[in-house]
């Protein structure tokens, strides 16, 4: 049994009395000790999936339209709110993209970590403070004795993100979701944060779901990768298999779109067009209007998920068409 199992999860945005699907039945599983990367462009539904797993879609315009999310064998979507809250920040935790705004500006960072410890662990204030110091050491915040008394705005972006991570791992979560954890940071800081996450995972043995728009970040950090496009996972495999044998034209297009820093490229092979608006229904394969290898079948029939190679699944009628 996987630690986290998402099955046919459907999410829709409620707008003007209509429900517009944004995540269209995605399934994946994450094991302990594993890092799953979910990559895709904005609007593909990757962050909403993260919020759905964490149970943070309440009070938003997003509705869960179907499917199941099982965590440690228990169904989350039908769980009582109190029971679910007992898991949040405890067995499962999340690190958000914006370290600038994700911490409460009026409380000292130490107190914000203490809060989550006291919520889920039966600790005295001084025990919680002691543990907070150790957590800040773990995430390599310099001079933790001073930093616990700092307010968020007194820290740099990288330090704030370390505090967010300390808060997330405070209760030894089995699942850590990192939603674009380094997007707002400089490359040198990004590298440190990603190394920290990998290091922590080794020590704690928890599962990580890393969500990013940056294929480079995903390629460097993840064991398995799921590529999302317009609410579906179009390709999924272990990182090694995926990048060695890219099979979906979208994945290939994404890779070709990124100007590499380690070699010269004269022209980028950009994916033409853009992601259709949410309220636009696309018959057949959602990617067909932008696909350079489109054929008639793609315009009418929605491709089902299938195995392209062992452990490498794909949603495409004509994978690796560029080879032929």
């Amino acid at each position, binding site marked *: 049994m996987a630690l986290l199992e998402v099955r046919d999860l459907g999410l829709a945005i409620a707008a003007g009395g209509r429900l517009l699907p944004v995540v269209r039945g995605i399934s994946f599983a994450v094991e302990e000790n594993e890092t799953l990367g979910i990559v895709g*462009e*904005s609007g593909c539904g990757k962050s909403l999936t993260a919020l759905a797993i964490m149970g943070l879609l309440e009070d938003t315009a997003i509705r869960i339209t179907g499917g199941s999310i099982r965590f440690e064998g228990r169904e989350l979507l039908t769980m009582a709110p109190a029971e679910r809250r007992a898991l949040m920040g405890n067995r499962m935790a999340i690190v958000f993209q914006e370290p600038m705004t994700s911490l409460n500006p009026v409380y000292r960072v130490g107190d914000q970590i203490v809060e989550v410890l006291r919520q889920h662990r039966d600790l005295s204030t001084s025990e919680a403070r002691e543990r907070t110091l150790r957590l800040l050491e773990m995430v390599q915040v310099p001079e933790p004795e001073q930093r616990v008394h700092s307010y968020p705005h007194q820290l740099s*972006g990288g330090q704030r993100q370390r505090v967010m991570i300390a808060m997330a791992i405070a209760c030894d979560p089995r699942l850590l979701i990192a939603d674009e954890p380094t997007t707002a940071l*400089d*490359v*040198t800081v*990004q*590298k440190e944060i*990603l190394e920290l996450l990998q290091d922590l995972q080794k020590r704690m043995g928890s599962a990580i779901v890393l969500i990013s*728009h*940056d*294929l*480079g*970040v995903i*390629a*460097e950090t993840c064991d398995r990768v799921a590529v999302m496009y317009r609410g579906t996972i179009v390709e999924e495999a272990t990182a090694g298999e995926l*990048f*060695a*044998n*890219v099979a979906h034209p979208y994945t*290939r*297009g*994404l*890779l*070709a*779109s*990124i*100007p*590499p*820093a*380690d*070699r*010269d*490229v004269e*022209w*980028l*092979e*950009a*994916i*033409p067009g*853009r*992601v259709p608006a949410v309220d636009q229904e696309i018959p057949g394969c959602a990617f067909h209007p*932008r696909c350079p290898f489109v054929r008639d079948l793609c315009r009418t029939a929605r491709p089902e998920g299938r195995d392209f190679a062992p452990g490498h699944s794909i949603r495409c009628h004509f994978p*690796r068409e*560029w080879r032929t």
Partner: protein
Amino acid sequence: MTAPLLQLRDLRVHFRTGRGGLFRRRRILEAVGGVSFDIHRGEVLGLVGESGSGKSTIGRTLTRLERPTGGEAIFEGTDILALTARAFRPLRRRIQMIFQDPFASLNPRLTIEQTLAEPLFIHRLARDRSEARDMIAETLELVGMDPDAMKRHPHEFSGGQRQRIGIARVMIVKPRLVIADEPVSALDVSIQAQVLNLIKKLQRESGVSMLFISHDLGVVRYISDRIAVMRRGKIVEIGDRNRIFDSPRHDYTRRLLASIPRLPPAPN
């Protein structure tokens, strides 16, 4: 070799942070601490650095959106930093800027035609509306947009399209120097590639000089002829693109390059 189009000499920019007072010291922040470089005709100089390195401030100072505290910028023989605002206005046609945020850089109340016609009338490049309209249609096609777009308002366009319109606004006045301040960093990867290709193509075709500011080393490598690496308001290293990437001399450049996540090549 002819004289450079722009010679920047010892540019310094300082910001005051917060309000000071008799009982509190006002802090002075050095955003740019003595930067010099040349941009030659037809050349793209990439300016790369992390946030707070002062790279954007240089671009904003050259378009006089920010006041320098020292230094000079000789553009075609005149020090544009020493001119009065009034005297600089005609020169604005020659030095244009592409902004980062395509959602904020277009006035939501104006149609695309109104936005694009503005510089034409200011700089007397069009005599009347019909001539302006022809030039706008031509420029929109140049940036890969349907000329019908001119009748619409910014909110009807996607981020990539708006950035194309922003580029059209710059190219329509036929500038000599374009300052591109993180022009693609707000865009999704697939759109970013389209816009980068467009900028590169337009630069090649028009031979305009460009100061291309970005935090993304891959992007800078793709577009620039020469590259300057900035850190804390100073240039730590400047040189030809391949020299910087293949044999970086400064520690910071090396650290920067080592931090970039490695990306597998796209299959062919």
